[in-house]
């Protein structure tokens, strides 16, 4: 017994370099407190952003904000041009990105040989890391310059490129979670491979795919930089004309934040509150579902 204690003590001595156990306990306690404080420091800014956006933005949320376009000299008016722009460009981006991302992920997860799959997966990871402003330049070069027109479609494509790798990687992950026995059972029943994938594998992986797609959607809603040189922004309400410039909520916030007119700053806060409400709603709804599982 005594020997065991001695052995423990000597090991702890070597661990800490000091013989006083109290000091070790103090260090332990201090550092544990510090990590708690660090965790708080992460949460405080979230609270601060939410509180201020709510305090300044919610009062500015009005029917005018979402039904009226900008007015000259900042008198009255609203962000309808931006709301409608976001409502058009982001879904179109999703229509481009989600099917491509899911199909691409099917290839990587189900067919691709290991090396090819790695290359594709690697490129998806790289694409996630490419600063979005560079995606803006890329799309500008291919979809604005040749057509001699800033246009909403280019904006959608830029947003789609932001979404694509996110959708692809989350889809791939959820496909990997589908047990192989399901595939084998389906193939054994004589179902062709492509149907097996579409109706068995994809359906089983659907919740994960939806999660990824919704998160990508929310992310695209908040992107500004890729739109600067593509959709450009517009003071006009543009519904349905993808060949023309179009505004979006993030662009609206960016331009109105720098205005010297309080009414326009308030509109920026209102638009920020609107954007944040939607983005956080999607995030909370989607994450809350899968959260219990992930944190284990």
């Amino acid at each position, binding site marked *: 017994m005594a020997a065991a204690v001695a052995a423990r003590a000597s090991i702890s001595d070597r661990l800490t370099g000091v013989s006083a156990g109290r000091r070790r306990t103090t260090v332990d306690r201090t550092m544990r407190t510090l990590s708690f404080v660090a965790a708080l420091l992460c949460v405080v800014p979230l609270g601060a952003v939410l509180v201020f956006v709510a305090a300044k933005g919610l009062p500015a949320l009005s029917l005018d904000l979402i039904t009226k376009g900008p007015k000259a000299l900042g008198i009255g008016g609203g962000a309808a041009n931006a709301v409608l722009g976001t409502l058009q460009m982001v879904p179109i981006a999703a229509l481009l990105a989600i099917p491509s991302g899911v199909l691409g992920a099917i290839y990587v997860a189900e067919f691709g040989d290991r090396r090819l799959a790695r290359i594709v997966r690697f490129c998806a990871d790289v694409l996630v890391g490419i600063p979005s402003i560079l995606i803006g330049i890329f799309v500008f070069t291919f979809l604005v310059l040749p057509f001699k027109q800033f246009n909403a479609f280019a904006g959608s494509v830029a947003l789609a490129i932001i979404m694509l790798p996110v959708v692809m990687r989350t889809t791939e992950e959820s496909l990997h979670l589908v047990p192989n026995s399901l595939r084998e059972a389906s193939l054994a029943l004589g179902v062709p491979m492509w149907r097996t994938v579409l109706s068995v594998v994809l359906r089983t992986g659907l919740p994960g795919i939806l999660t990824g797609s919704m998160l990508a959607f929310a992310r695209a809603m908040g992107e500004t930089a890729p739109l600067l040189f593509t959709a450009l922004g517009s003071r006009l309400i543009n519904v349905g004309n993808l060949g023309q*410039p179009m505004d979006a909520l993030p662009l609206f916030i960016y331009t109105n934040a720098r205005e010297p007119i309080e009414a326009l700053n308030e509109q920026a806060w209102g638009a920020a509150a609107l954007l944040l409400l939607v983005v956080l709603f999607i995030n909370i709804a989607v994450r809350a579902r899968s959260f219990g599982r992930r944190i284990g």
Partner: protein
Amino acid sequence: MTISLSKRMGALALASAMAVGACSSPAATTTPTAAAVATGPAASAGPTTPQVPSGNVTLAGAGATFPALLYQVWIEKFSTAYPNVAINYVANGSGAGITAITQQTVDFGASDAAMKDTEIAALPAGTKILHVPTALGAVVLIFNVAGVDTKPITKLNLDGPTIAGIFLGKITTWNDPAIAALNPDIAANLPATPIKVIHRADGSGTTNTFTTYLSAVSDDWKNGPGAGKTVNWPTGDGAPGNDGVSGGVKGGDGRIGYVELQYAVISGLSSAAVKNANGKFVQGSSDGVTAAANGALDAFPADFRAAPIINGAGDTTYPIASYTYLLVYQDQTDATKGQALVAYIYWALTDGQKEEKAIGYAPLPDPIQQKALDELHSITTGGAPIWAK
């Protein structure tokens, strides 16, 4: 796919009946407020007014933020009179306007700095660009500084060398003797607050006007940063657009920046009275700019590319003023758009001029307005003039 939507309107026929209606638009019958345009061709041009196309047209424009507040008002009024014409003007700086029209990504550009020869050389081969002056404006120095008595200072006199000193970073506090000497009444109230300069971050006609002024009043500036749409600022923060600069100045104590007059008005910031060539301190105003423009009429060049009007003679002349331009291709590839563009510019040069004074811009002097209207006749589509003489 949808990209070419904008080109679909090419074949739209125009109803001549519509054109008659266009001439008698409500704006044309209102009494001009600015005496300068009372004899304008709106009254005398009679049947030869350019016709507004009958179908829906969207014009895209980009560029100068200097006249953006005026253009917002114009576009609103014009689109009320002609609901089928939508004009999308994105104010992203004169530099961006010149680039956009050069790359042909917009139907018209806007700039307060006339295009330089090198910029004109960069235009697509075989094209010719027209500079259509639309307005004049003053570049004023806005400031945001609380006095020793903690109340905002609202009146300030500055002269050329002092302004240059501030923007060179040589005058660094608000109670600098150079500033105090120009403001004996409030010298004791000038605080020791550091001066923070806010300048443009983007290529800007306002910057071109302002730095042309600085180069004229200070050799240090002329031999240092020089004049241009973008210069190497010795001090200060950048902000995009006239709106960004006024927002930036508003954002903190001790700041100073330069913007078009109306931006001072809408931001509620005071602007400095600047010493003019006659030694008088003049507050930026529409009249002060008109005086400057009238004094510089002889210097207006045949190709319209006028330099900023700096330090004009006259007691009431404001010393930092500039024309602002719409940049349009002489030959319009899209007939309908070209027609709408000519009609809009005509409206701007006639009825639009009456709006200017009330919102802090100066209408074009008569001879310049006439020259600009004449220039409009030279715009063609497929070789044929859009608005024949």
